[in-house]
């Protein structure tokens, strides 16, 4: 039944190139979003076995709380981005929409699958689509950013394949629930865990592997930047936590996650103070927020995992808001250099307001959603060690500092550039929708926590996952 959404997207990806109409792709992505809402409202975990081969032998797709949480977010942001790019992308639009559909298929496949090699295949589909989308504008910087991303990206996914190959050699099966029963904490399995986490860390942008993110963001068109920084990095985090919590059980990698998360937070924040290019600065901000997510998830308690997943939700919303609203500025002025942009705020007050909501939300200012999730992270880390909370608060102050820099350099002061066109409505509507969602989640954070609860329960109860797949009824 879930294959309806995937096959509609595949068909749309092919038909957009043949029939040359973009509405096919946009309607397919929006259809998959509503279809996933319909599945999300179903009460229990559904397991879907392909071609009737039952779970330990065939490929299964498991629609549990965490997978549906990610899939709903992914299709929501992709549909808003597809609407936003109608007016933004001017040349070769049909190939852009094909790549966008393939990216959606890859991301949905990663979130919903229950087989580890299937996850690798969809991960590669997503990666190849993102390499092509980064190189889309075909000018000097896009080409350089795309081949840098391609070389390191395929090297890291080769390490992931190496880990999966060794895991198959040790355990004899590829199904995640079956692996969960066969894996124990011996040294061979720990080496495999290290290789898989090392391969996935590049997509999650943790510290020694964060270098591609600031190079790729200025080079890609703005809607693609919004997707890269919010949803693709989010699916990297999803894959890591799926492997750590569901496949490998409670193996003690938590101190490693907290250490890497702290270094990532600090490095992302410090590097963002130096930048002159606005998109590189927001990219380093993404690196810093991913550090927060890993520190929160590395705590391991229920409060910590809830805080981490809530911060992931907020990061996805806020980063896509920031990149899309900066994309409107870029569409009008054509430059990203903060020395030349200045005083745009008087000419575009709504865009300045939305960017301000995004900036204040990421910095953690009270009536917005960033404050709620950061407060939960502070509460979770206080139970482990107050030093981590102190470092998190200091990095929050640094975050506020560089967002003040971006906002005042772009939107305040004397303006040198005159805006002549009117902002198209199709570009403004998704930005306003996400702004309203951020403010609503900020004023009523119970909505966000209610949305994250099933995901936390699904993540922390490994035995419930195993029983649903291996024991329960299979569609």
């Amino acid at each position, binding site marked *: 039944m879930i294959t309806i959404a995937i096959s509609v997207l595949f068909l749309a990806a092919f038909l957009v190139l043949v029939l040359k109409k973009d509405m096919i792709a946009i309607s397919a992505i929006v259809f998959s979003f509503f279809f996933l809402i319909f599945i999300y409202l179903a009460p229990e975990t559904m397991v879907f076995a392909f071609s009737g081969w039952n779970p330990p032998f065939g490929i299964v797709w498991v629609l549990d709380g965490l997978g549906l949480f990610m899939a709903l977010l992914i299709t929501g942001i992709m549909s808003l981005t597809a609407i936003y790019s109608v007016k933004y992308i001017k040349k070769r639009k049909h190939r852009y929409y094909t790549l966008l559909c393939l990216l959606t298929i890859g991301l949905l496949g990663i979130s919903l699958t229950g087989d580890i090699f299937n996850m690798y*295949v969809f991960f590669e589909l997503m990666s*190849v689509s993102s*390499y092509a989308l980064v190189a889309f504008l075909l000018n000097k*910087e896009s080409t*350089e950013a*795309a*081949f840098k991303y391609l070389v390191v990206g395929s090297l890291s996914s*080769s390490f992931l394949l190496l880990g999966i*190959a060794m895991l198959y050699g040790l355990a004899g099966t*590829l199904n995640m629930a079956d692996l969960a029963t066969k894996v124990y904490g011996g040294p061979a399995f720990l080496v495999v865990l290290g290789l898989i986490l090392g391969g996935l860390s590049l997509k999650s942008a943790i510290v020694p592997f964060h270098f591609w993110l600031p190079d790729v963001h200025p080079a890609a068109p703005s809607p693609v930047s919004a997707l890269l920084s919010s949803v693709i990095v989010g699916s990297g985090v999803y894959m890591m936590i799926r492997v750590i919590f569901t496949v490998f059980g409670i193996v003690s990698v938590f101190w490693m996650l907290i250490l890497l998360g702290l270094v990532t937070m600090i490095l992302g924040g410090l590097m963002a103070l130096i930048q002159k290019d606005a998109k590189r600065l927001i990219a380093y901000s993404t690196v810093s927020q991913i550090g927060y997510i890993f520190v929160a998830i590395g705590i391991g308690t229920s409060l910590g995992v809830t805080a981490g997943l809530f911060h992931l939700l907020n990061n996805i919303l806020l980063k896509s808001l920031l990149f899309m609203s900066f994309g409107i500025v870029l569409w009008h002025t054509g430059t990203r250099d903060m020395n030349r942009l200045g005083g745009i705020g008087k000419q575009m007050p709504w865009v300045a307001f939305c960017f301000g909501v995004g900036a204040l939300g990421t910095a953690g200012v009270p009536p917005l959603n960033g404050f709620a999730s950061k407060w939960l992270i502070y509460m979770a880390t206080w139970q482990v060690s107050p030093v981590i909370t102190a470092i998190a608060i200091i990095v929050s102050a640094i975050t506020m500092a560089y967002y003040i820099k971006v906002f005042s350099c772009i939107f305040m002061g004397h303006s040198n550039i005159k805006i002549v066109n009117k902002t198209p409505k199709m570009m403004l509507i998704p930005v306003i929708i996400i702004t309203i969602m951020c403010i609503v989640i900020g004023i009523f954070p119970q909505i966000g926590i209610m949305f994250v609860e099933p995901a936390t329960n699904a993540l922390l109860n490994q035995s419930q996952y195993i029983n649903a797949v291996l024991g329960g009824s299979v569609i």
Partner: protein
Amino acid sequence: MIELYLTSGLMMMLAVYCIAMKPNLIKKIIGLAIFTDAIHLLLITIGFRGNGIPPIMTHENVNTFAQLSVDPVPQALVLTSIVISISITALALGISIIAYRHFNTLNTEEMNRLKG
């Protein structure tokens, strides 16, 4: 058997050396291809059984077939992975053609306008 594992490990180390140290873009792409081929060799060797028959089922008893043949699952994984590696190599070569048109060189140390 053990020499196949050692060959695979040696190929991986050479491929990582090639990607990390050689500044030419085409050599890096060749290094990527060698790395994925080394992993395919490792996968097929994992499923190997001494004196085994190929996993193609003719009209025989299923049990004797299952005790004689090599493991077919890694072979399926390798077929999938070869397809993925071909698409990445094709995309990489396409991007390097466009990079040569823009920069007139394939030396990655000269193509670093994005830094900092």
